[in-house]
C-alpha cells in the first residue's frame, strides 16, 4: 500500500503543480490580448506596458510549465508503466496532438515576446491569439486522455489485452467535452481572480493607475467565467451521476439508495459506519440535481462492492470546497462587475476582498481535480484496470516522491522570486514615466 500511495502522491503533486501552469497558459494570453487591444484602440501607453508585463509573466510560467510538462511526460512511465503499456497506444493520439499544439504555442510565444519591433502589429496581435488558442487546444487534448480514463472507449478489453483499438473513438470519449469545457472555464476563473487580486493589492499599495486597469480586465474575465461555470458544473454532475454513479455518490457522501434524495451541505462522512455527521440535508435537491426530477432515485454507495468505493471523505470534502469557492467567486465577481457598470469604479472594500480571493479559484480548481481523480479510485481506467495493478514495480518510489517534492518547492520559490523582480522593475519603469494616478 505505501508503495502505491507514494506513487499516487507523486502523481498528484506533479499534476497539481503542473495544472497551475497549464491554466495560466490557457487564460493569461487572453487577458494579455485584451490589454493589447485596448492599447491598439486607445494608444494609451499604460496598456502597452501592461501587455508587455503580462506577456513576460506568460513567458515565465510557460518556460517553467514546459519544464514541468516534460518531466510529467516521463513520469507517467516512471510511475505507471502498467497503465502506459495498455493506454499508450489507445490515448496516445491526443498526446501527440497536444505536443503539436504545445509546439505551436512555444513558437507563437517566441514571436510575441521578441517580435514587438520586428513584425507588424496585426501579426503580433495574432501571434498572441495563437498562444492562447493553442494553450486551450493543449488543454482539450490532455483532458481528452483523462476523460478516457473516466469513460474508456475505442477498444475491446479482451481479458486484459486491448484489441480493435480505434484511437479517434478513444479521443472522442463521452467524458471529454464536458470535462474540457469545465476545466477551461475554471482556468479563466482562477487566473482572472488571481490576477485581479494581485493587481488590486499592488494598486492599494502603490496607487499606479496601471494596476487598476489590470484589475478591471482580469475581474471581468474572471466574473464571466464564474457566471458560466455553475451551468457547466451542473451538466458535469449529471453526466457523472449517469456514467460513474459511485463517484457521484462519493461526491455527495450518499450511502443509501433513495428517492427524493437530499443534497448534503458540509458534513463529515464516516466510511466504516456508512453515515454522515454534522451535515445539512436539503430534501429532494440531490435527486433533482442528478436526474432533473425531485422524486428520482439516486444510487447510494451501498449498491457497489465495498472494494470498488472511492475514498468517500476526500472526494466529498474536495467537492464541497470546489463548489463553495466557486460560488464565493461568483458572488464577488457579480458585485464587482455591477460596481464597474454602475459606478465605473471599484470600492476599496471590494479591492480588499479581491486580494483575499487570490488563491480561491486555484483552490477550487485543484479540489475539482481531486474529485475527478480520487473519485475514480480504485480504478485508473474506470472498471477495467486498478491503480494498484498499474504501479511501477521499481523500488524507491518514496525517494523519488521526496525528490520531486523538493524540486517543485524549489520551482515555486524561483517563480515567486522572479515574479517579484518583474513587479519591482515594472514599478521602476512606472516611477520614471510618472505613472501614478
Amino acid at each position, binding site marked *: 500500500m505505501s508503495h502505491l500511495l507514494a506513487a499516487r502522491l507523486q502523481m498528484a503533486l506533479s499534476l497539481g503543480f503542473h495544472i497551475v501552469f497549464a491554466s495560466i497558459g490557457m487564460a493569461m494570453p487572453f487577458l494579455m490580448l485584451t490589454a493589447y487591444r485596448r492599447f491598439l484602440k486607445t494608444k494609451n501607453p499604460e496598456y502597452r506596458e501592461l501587455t508587455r508585463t503580462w506577456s*513576460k509573466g506568460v*513567458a*515565465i510560467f*510557460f*518556460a*517553467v510549465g*514546459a*519544464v*514541468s*510538462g*516534460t*518531466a510529467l*511526460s*516521463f513520469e507517467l*512511465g*516512471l510511475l505507471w*508503466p502498467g497503465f*502506459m*503499456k495498455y493506454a*499508450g*497506444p*489507445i490515448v*496516445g*493520439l491526443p*498526446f*501527440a*496532438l497536444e*505536443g*503539436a499544439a*504545445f*509546439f*505551436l504555442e*512555444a*513558437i*507563437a*510565444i*517566441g*514571436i510575441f515576446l*521578441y*517580435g514587438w519591433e*520586428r*513584425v507588424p502589429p496585426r501579426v503580433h496581435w495574432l501571434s498572441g491569439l*495563437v498562444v492562447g488558442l493553442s494553450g486551450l487546444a493543449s488543454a482539450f487534448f490532455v483532458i481528452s486522455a483523462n476523460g478516457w480514463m473516466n469513460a474508456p472507449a475505442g477498444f475491446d478489453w479482451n481479458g486484459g489485452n486491448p*484489441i480493435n*483499438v*480505434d*484511437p479517434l473513438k478513444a479521443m472522442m470519449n463521452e467524458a471529454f467535452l464536458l470535462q474540457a469545457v469545465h476545466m477551461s472555464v475554471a482556468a479563466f476563473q482562477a487566473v482572472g481572480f488571481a490576477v485581479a487580486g494581485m493587481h488590486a493589492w499592488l494598486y492599494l499599495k502603490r496607487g499606479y493607475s496601471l494596476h487598476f486597469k489590470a484589475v478591471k480586465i482580469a475581474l471581468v474575465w474572471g466574473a464571466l467565467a464564474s457566471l458560466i461555470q455553475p451551468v457547466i458544473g451542473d451538466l458535469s454532475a449529471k453526466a457523472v451521476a449517469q456514467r460513474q454513479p459511485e463517484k457521484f455518490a462519493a461526491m455527495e457522501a450518499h450511502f443509501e439508495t433513495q428517492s427524493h434524495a437530499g443534497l448534503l451541505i458540509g458534513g463529515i462522512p464516516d466510511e466504516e459506519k456508512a453515515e454522515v455527521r454534522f451535515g445539512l440535508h436539503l430534501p429532494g435537491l440531490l435527486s433533482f440535481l442528478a436526474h432533473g426530477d425531485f422524486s428520482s432515485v439516486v444510487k447510494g454507495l451501498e449498491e457497489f462492492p465495498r472494494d470498488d468505493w472511492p475514498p468517500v471523505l476526500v472526494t466529498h470534502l474536495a467537492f464541497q470546497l470546489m463548489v463553495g469557492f466557486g460560488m464565493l467567486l461568483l458572488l464577488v465577481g457579480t458585485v464587482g462587475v455591477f460596481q464597474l457598470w454602475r459606478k465605473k469604479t471599484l470600492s476599496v472594500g471590494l479591492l480588499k476582498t479581491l486580494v483575499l480571493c487570490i488563491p480561491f479559484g486555484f483552490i477550487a480548481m485543484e479540489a475539482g481535480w481531486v474529485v475527478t481523480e480520487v473519485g475514480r479510485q480504485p480504478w485508473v481506467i474506470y472498471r477495467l484496470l486498478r491503480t494498484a495493478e498499474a504501479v*511501477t514495480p*521499481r*523500488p524507491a518510489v518514496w525517494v*523519488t516522491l521526496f*525528490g520531486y517534492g523538493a524540486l517543485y518547492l524549489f*520551482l515555486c520559490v*524561483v517563480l515567486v*522570486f*522572479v515574479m517579484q*523582480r*518583474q513587479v*519591482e*522593475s515594472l514599478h521602476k519603469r512606472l516611477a520614471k514615466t510618472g505613472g501614478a494616478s
Partner: protein
Amino acid sequence: MVFSLLLFLALSLLLYALFGGADFGAGILEMWRMGKMGKQEHALVQRAMAPVWEANHIWLIVAVVIVFMAFPSVYATVCTFLFIPLMCVLLGIVARGCAFVLRYYDATAGHSKLYSGIFAVSSTFCTFFLGVLAGAMTFGRLDPLATDFEAAYLAPWLNGHCALTGVFACSLFSFLAALYLSGEAEVKALQEDFQKRAAYASIGMVLAGAAVFATQRGLIAKFIHTPLALSCFFLATLLMGQLWYAFSFLEATQSVRFWTRAAGAGVVAMVMLGWYSVVFPAALVFREGVLTYYDAAAPAPVLKALLIALVVGLLVIIPALLYLFRIFKWEVLE
C-alpha cells in the same frame, strides 16, 4: 508503417540534437570557462538562444510521444529499468530550465554568476545522462528478469561504455554549439575563440567515439557491415576536413560563416544517422534477446492515427517554425 514512424522518430531526435543540442552545448561551453566567460560571450549566448529556446526543446516531447504511443513496451521498459539515468536527465532539464528563466527574467540582477553556474552544470549533467540513456538502450545489459536491485537497475547503465556514450554526447553538443556561436558572433576575437573550442570539442568527439566502439563487443563488425553507417562516417570525415580547411585558410565572410554552421549541423546529422543505422532495428538489447521496433509496435490503426497526427502537426508547425527562424535567425545571415 513502422518504418515511416521510425523516420519521424529519427527526425525528431535529429532536430532535438541540432537545435536542443546546441542549447545544451552552449551550457557545456560555459562550464569549460567557469567564471572566465566575458560579458560579451554571455550576451551572445543569451541573444542567440532566447527567442527559440522553448521551441528547441519540444522535439524531445515529440519523440517521447511517438515512443509511448507506437512502441509502448519500449517506453515502459526504459522508464522502469533505466529510471535512474532518466531521472537524472529530468533533473537536469528542470534545473537548466529554471536557471535560464532566472537569468533571463530576473529583471534586476543582470547576469548573476549563480544562475550561470547552475545553467552550465545542469547542461553538462543532462547531456551526459542523455548519452548514457542512448548507450544503455542497446548495450545489452538490460535484464527485466533480474531480481536484485543492482542487476536490474544499475548494471544496465552503470558501466564504462555508457559513461563513454555520455562523454561523446557532451563533446558532440559542445562542438555544435561552438560552431553555431562562432557563426553568430560579430567580433572577430570571439569568432576565433569559439572556433578554437569547436576544434577541441571535435578532438573529444573522435577520442570518445573511438572508445565507445572499443568498449562494445561486435560494434565494429556491425559498423563495417552496415553500408549506410560507413557512408555517414565517410561524409562526416569529409565535412570535418572542410571545416578545418575553412577555419585555417578562409576569411570569415558571411557565406563562409553560413557554410561552417551548415557543415557542423551536417556532421551531427551524419553521427545520428550512422547511430540509427548501426542499432536498427533493435529498440532495446537485453542480456538475453533483442526487442526490435517491429516487435514492439502497437496495432496498425494506432500507428496510422499517429502518423496522420504527426503529418497534420508538422504541416502546422513547420511553416510557423520557419517564420520564427526567419524573424530571429536568418536576418543575421542576410
